[in-house]
């Protein structure tokens, strides 16, 4: 039962450590084109907490009030929608949970069975993909997701368009979202095709440092005891971060990446033998977003160095006989190529 006075989620900026995960999420908030974050790691490391915190952190979007797919302008509203309210309102950026048990119908939308059977009307009931348009789609335990849902997501994430052709319906609508997945690799691997769709990937582990652990527990305990005042304490920090993200979005277009940097990106990917060109593109985009976030006018090698592990570690060919983890492999190559 949702309580309207419920305090917000654990503030994003109050998360201790896990810098790589936080950075990756901020980068996708700056440039949605980076294409999602995959967070893999141990239990109880704040994966879900970060995603829920992110939802509260993101700036609001303008959307047509009556539109089920959060269209920005009335002209973008799909033709199958009977628009009841054409006003533009500010909404929080949608962060939609895709539960493991979701049926295909619930994900892509389907014939509204209720209406079909009770009134004899043929109507489309939008699914989770419609609600996630222009926002985030969050899948916890993504590696346990059923294969047929995965196939579906791949297709939509690739095209940005959800096409429903079944049960006499022919519906399409925009479905551009940032995919955020989290999971524990011990419970099953993710298909390479889906891995590749995530722009960035992050490996999180429980902090080893005692002081950090104590800090985590202390903050979480404070939040659990009095969430409202804890959130109020961190509101300022969250607002600062939000401001930086908004600024970075504006600055993004004017951040330069000269030929040398692009050459570096390519050299990194060649040296790592990553498949396709998606690696280079994501690396460059992420580095540019990072430069914008840090207020730099140009992408530098330092930016590359910082985002390379996230952008590339999940694109390596799997080598079952290599004992070193992929992070170590990426770092080794980064050191070789960037000196």
């Amino acid at each position, binding site marked *: *039962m949702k309580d309207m006075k*419920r305090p917000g989620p654990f503030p994003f900026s109050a998360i201790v450590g896990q810098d790589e995960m936080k950075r990756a999420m901020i980068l996708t908030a700056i440039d949605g084109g980076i294409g999602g974050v995959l967070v893999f790691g*141990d*239990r*109880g*490391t*704040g994966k*879900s907490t970060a995603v829920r915190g992110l939802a509260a952190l993101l700036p609001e979007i303008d959307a047509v009030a009556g539109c089920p797919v959060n269209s920005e302008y009335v002209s973008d509203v799909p033709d199958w929608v009977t628009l009841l309210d054409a006003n533009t309102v500010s909404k929080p950026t949608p962060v939609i*949970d895709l*539960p*493991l*048990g979701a*049926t*295909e*119908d619930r994900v892509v939308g389907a*014939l509204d*069975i*209720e209406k*079909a*059977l*009770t*009134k*004899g009307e043929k109507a489309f009931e939008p699914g989770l993909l419609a609600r996630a348009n222009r926002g985030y789609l969050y899948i*916890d*335990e993504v*590696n*346990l997701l*059923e*294969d*047929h849902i995965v196939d579906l997501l791949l297709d939509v994430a690739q095209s940005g368009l959800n096409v429903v052709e079944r*049960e*006499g319906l022919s519906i399409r609508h925009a479905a551009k979202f940032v995919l955020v997945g989290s999971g*524990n*690799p*011990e*419970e*099953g*691997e993710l*298909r*390479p095709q889906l891995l590749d769709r995530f722009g960035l990937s992050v490996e999180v*582990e*429980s*902090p*080893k440092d*005692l002081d950090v*652990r*104590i800090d*985590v*527990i*202390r903050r*979480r*305990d404070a939040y*659990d*005891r009095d969430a409202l005042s804890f959130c109020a304490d961190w509101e300022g920090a969250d607002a600062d971060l939000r401001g930086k993200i908004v600024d970075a979005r504006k600055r993004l277009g004017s951040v330069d990446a000269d030929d040398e940097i692009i050459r570096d990106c390519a050299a990194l990917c060649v040296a790592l033998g990553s498949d396709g060109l998606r690696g280079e593109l994501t690396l460059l985009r992420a580095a540019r977003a990072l430069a914008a976030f840090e207020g730099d006018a140009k992408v530098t090698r330092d930016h590359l160095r910082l985002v390379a592990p996230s952008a590339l570690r999940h694109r390596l060919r*799997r*080598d*079952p*006989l290599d*004992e070193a983890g992929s992070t170590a492999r990426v770092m080794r190559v980064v050191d070789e190529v960037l000196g």
Partner: protein
Amino acid sequence: MSGPLARWHSVNLAVACFALDPAAVGGISVRGRVGPVRERFEAGLRVALADSPIHRIAPSMADEALYGGLDLAATLETGTLRQTQGILDREGVLFLPMAERVEAGMAARLAAALDTRADLALVAFDEGAEPGERLPDTLSDRLAIHLDLSDHPLSDAPALEFEMAALVAARAALPSVSVSDAALEELVVVAAQLGVHSLRAPLQALAIARASAALSGASELEEQDLLLAVELVLAPRATQIPEQAEDVQDPPPPPPPPQDESADDSDQPDPVQEDVPTEILLEAARAMLPPDLLARMAAAKANKSPAGNGSGAKRTGNRRGRPLPPRPGRLGGGARLDLVATLRTAAPWQTIRRNLTGDHTRIHVRPSDLRIRRYQEASDRAIIFVVDASGSSAMARLAEAKGAVELLLAEAYARRDHVALVAFRGDGSEVLLPPTRSLVQTKRRLSSLPGGGGTPLAAGLKAAMELAGLVRGKGMTPSIALLTDGRANVDLSGAANRAQASEDATQMARVLRAEGVPGLVIDTGLRPTRGLDGLAREMGAPYLPLPRADGQSLSRAVDAALAP
């Protein structure tokens, strides 16, 4: 703190702490088979939880029951929209019997519900008999209190007692219990020393300590509260024996906290020297460590819960694959309505039903008209490697099998393979790797394999057959690849008796054939072994002499021979 009565006292306290604020504690995981002790525990729990509604759930509950959905029958009956309420939509405490049967997907759903809802708690009754059968880690990590009642004598389990008035008073006092920084730090340090990596655990320990303080009417955490928290929350999750402080800096890669509290007869953990600040707590924690911790730490590598391995093992057959004709049925459990077929069935009756009801405006569809889509799908393949790890020459074989397992796994996604590994040596066999698709897990498991000793071929085949049965039960198709040089010299009972050993092996091979498990016998001896082709014949399996096999050729051979 030892002796069954003292433990039962802690159980009593645990239930009281839980009842104070179920949602903050998250829940209880109780290990133990159904029996009078567990009944007393459950009865006590119900008394203590008099204020919260209790819902019983089953480990294989359909999503519709969990989340609610369209009540189609009622909707059709009344012509208006009727929804059913899901169990997860209600507040209260969920009782989950047979929790060891919970699959990863269900565990993740329950975990998500526990995470997002502030009015839900779970009591999981883990009735696993084997060490590997237990509640998935996803869930047990979220349940603060871990109890083990499996060996508790009934005579030391009097009915749990609660003073309800005191409970109510303590509940009111709970928010005002203050926690000193020192107490918080102590719990974190103890958790780290015990090798408890999840950060949830110290938080849960804190919640227990706080509840315990409220129960005793204190306004601040005292030593006994911390002790109780360590006993109920931290000690059962221990993955290492607390040692000196430097060990904390570099703990081993976090192994999943083994929750199987089965009582193996094994060595007591050796007492270790200590010089850490949170002396008393650690000392207590050491005393409370499950007696079989060492055995469990060793076994944790091999005996990972089978429920957590790989994915896609179940094949319900109504979502994908080759379409079959629709059939009558009811919606639910992820079944999809075949609307056209449903309407086609309903169509002939329309005139009759209209006249009967007098309603001429709508289509009359009755529950009996519903048609469900069905699909046929090939099930996943599980290849069980049975590897001879006996003697010094077999060490090489083990490495090759390792290579082959990893190579097959690397392509497992494309080919829907699960891979398992059974090794036999000395006087018995061991499941080194339960069926899995996870490369990460496999690597961790395979890193150190023992070798040497006799050749208990029959024991190896027996373990493989049991595993095959398990795999079948999960909807996969098992096949067995046996790698050996064939000279069985240890019989099923573990005695070194060459004649009996060979007899037993032949017997097991026949059983495998009768069970209909396809197989492959790979002769890894330097030259073909006499008798092994006979064994292959008994198994109904191809015989493949493959001296000097490397991982690559082995994986190719297995793939070719066992192609579905």
